[in-house]
């Protein structure tokens, strides 16, 4: 392998049922940063059936080129179909960096491809940077978020990573951006297609997208029960936000898993994060510490949440929250 033959920052942009997934756009945003340091291009990989219509959108969201693979075989995500397509694309285009969202698709596809390509892969990264030598530095949490590790893949190409959704920031859409669209038709070996999709069932569990909320009112053990969460909901309603939860209240069955913030839940970065009765275990902090402004309300003045909060109030949330809701409602009406 000649390292210098491998160039540019490639992003696999996930689509589901023909809809571009947010994480792909986040990766395009990050890829722009990396590509500008390297003085290289950002190239989006768009795979599906009749998805070419999205190519211009990806250019407006940061891609310089879009490699478009339109084929009936790629309509729904299936491991082998997608592995064949992207493997062939990698062989032809030789990416230096290849990124995927750390989703159920990206985390199924990327390791399969990494093994086929015989290269390294770093899972679920939360930070990507370029070293002085122009190598990719991939940082990720390990040991349940207790430890961060920076990983490199200096002797193999492409340098592959999956990136946690909700961590990187999208570019603002720029309708004036120009780019090129390249059609690429993989040759499929259908004798290897051994898995068939029988049906896909949507469940309501992701009806609320806490990652998209600008304001989150989050509750922990200190909130105690479903009744307590109603008070948080009232505050969220006044502010146009959503209610989220720590793991404790999800495990207790009070809140659904799709509302869980943290290492085993979702990573969020709202403009304001209210941490109500949340002590601030490291696994929880891992999911919310990038929030712009953190307001913590907790009875225990030694709770670790106060170490990351921008504004901490030591007090009883059962008193503070309803009063805050009432006063805010008046303020907003003014």
């Amino acid at each position, binding site marked *: 392998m000649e390292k210098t033959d491998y160039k540019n920052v490639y992003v696999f942009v996930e689509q589901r049922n023909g809809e571009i997934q947010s994480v792909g756009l986040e990766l395009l945003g990050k890829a722009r940063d990396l590509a500008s340091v390297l003085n290289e291009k950002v190239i989006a990989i768009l795979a599906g059936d009749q998805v070419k219509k999205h190519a211009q959108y990806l250019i407006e969201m940061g891609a310089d080129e879009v490699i478009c693979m339109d084929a009936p075989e790629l309509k729904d995500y299936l*491991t082998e179909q997608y592995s064949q397509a992207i493997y062939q694309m990698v062989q032809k285009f030789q990416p230096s960096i290849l990124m995927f969202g750390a989703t159920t698709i990206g985390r199924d596809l990327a*390791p399969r491809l990494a093994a086929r390509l015989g290269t390294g892969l770093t899972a679920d990264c939360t930070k990507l940077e370029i070293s002085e030598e122009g190598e990719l530095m991939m940082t990720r949490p390990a040991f*349940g978020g207790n430890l*961060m590790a920076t990983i490199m893949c200096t002797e193999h190409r492409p340098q592959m990573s999956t990136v946690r959704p909700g961590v990187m920031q999208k570019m603002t859409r720029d309708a004036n951006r120009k780019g090129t669209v390249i059609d690429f038709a993989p040759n499929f070996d259908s004798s290897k297609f051994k898995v068939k*999709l029988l049906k896909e069932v949507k469940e309501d569990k992701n009806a609320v997208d806490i990652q998209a909320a600008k304001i989150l009112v989050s509750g922990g053990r200190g909130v105690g029960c479903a009744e307590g969460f109603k008070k948080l909901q009232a505050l969220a309603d006044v502010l146009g936000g959503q209610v989220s939860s720590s793991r404790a209240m999800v495990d207790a069955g009070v809140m659904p898993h799709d509302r869980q913030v943290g290492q085993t839940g979702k990573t969020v970065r709202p403009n304001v994060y209210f941490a109500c009765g949340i002590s601030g275990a490291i696994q929880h902090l891992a999911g919310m*510490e990038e929030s712009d402004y*953190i307001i913590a309300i907790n009875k225990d003045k030694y709770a670790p949440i106060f170490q990351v909060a921008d504004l901490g109030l030591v007090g009883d949330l059962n008193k503070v929250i309803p009063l805050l809701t009432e006063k805010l409602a008046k303020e907003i009406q003014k």
Partner: protein
Amino acid sequence: MKIVVCIKQVPDTTEIKINPATGTLIRDGVPSIMNPDDKGGLEMALRLKDQYGAEVTVITMGPPQAEAILREAFAMGADRAILLTDRAFAGADTLATSNALAGALKCIDYDLIIGGRQAIDGDTAQVGPEMAEHLQLPQISYVTNVEYDGKKNLTVKKETENGYQMLSVEMPCLLTVLATANKARYMSVAGIMEAFDKEVEIWTADKIDVDRAKLGLSGSPTRVKKSFTKAQKGAGETFEVDAEEAVNIIISKLKEKHII
């Protein structure tokens, strides 16, 4: 049916704490357990065995003390246990680990390989799919249920972000399973008694079918450059005041930040 379940011994990461003075992990006294997703995979295999009859082999790669989880698997109902242990495996990243395990699998008869989705110490979810590629097997990850038609086919439920998929796959194949797929059985008393009479087979790198250059640190394309505990951002202001005053402070800050 012959089923091989890949399991890993991990520190119980929910018990790990950081030493605030040194910023390092405190591992002393942290118990070692069978990785939860792997236990879900083992339970899935044992249920197939209960229902259809199967020979269940468990395999782990690790230091000699990893034998403990193989004994536990015996006590739950596994029939055969293999410990892959050799200094040649040390320092392996996921690719080198998958090469070692695939090399061992090439020496075992199987219809179905089951692994956990991911281990709680590394959280990569990469070893299963990488093994499947080395063995040229179809894979399904994030599995929470499996039904067997009694012949060659499995119907598999895979969790996704938006719901689930039902997939069909012909054996041989590889599945990676979530801990939430089932509630793993406890070890039985008789099982515990027997577990210590059964033989754990010890396999070294010489015993398996693999190119030695693909093992251990030298077979690992990735390198950990540094590891560190997260620098916490500095604490902001904290006030210990009555509710009325607290609310006034919050509202003035929200105004200052142009939130309201």
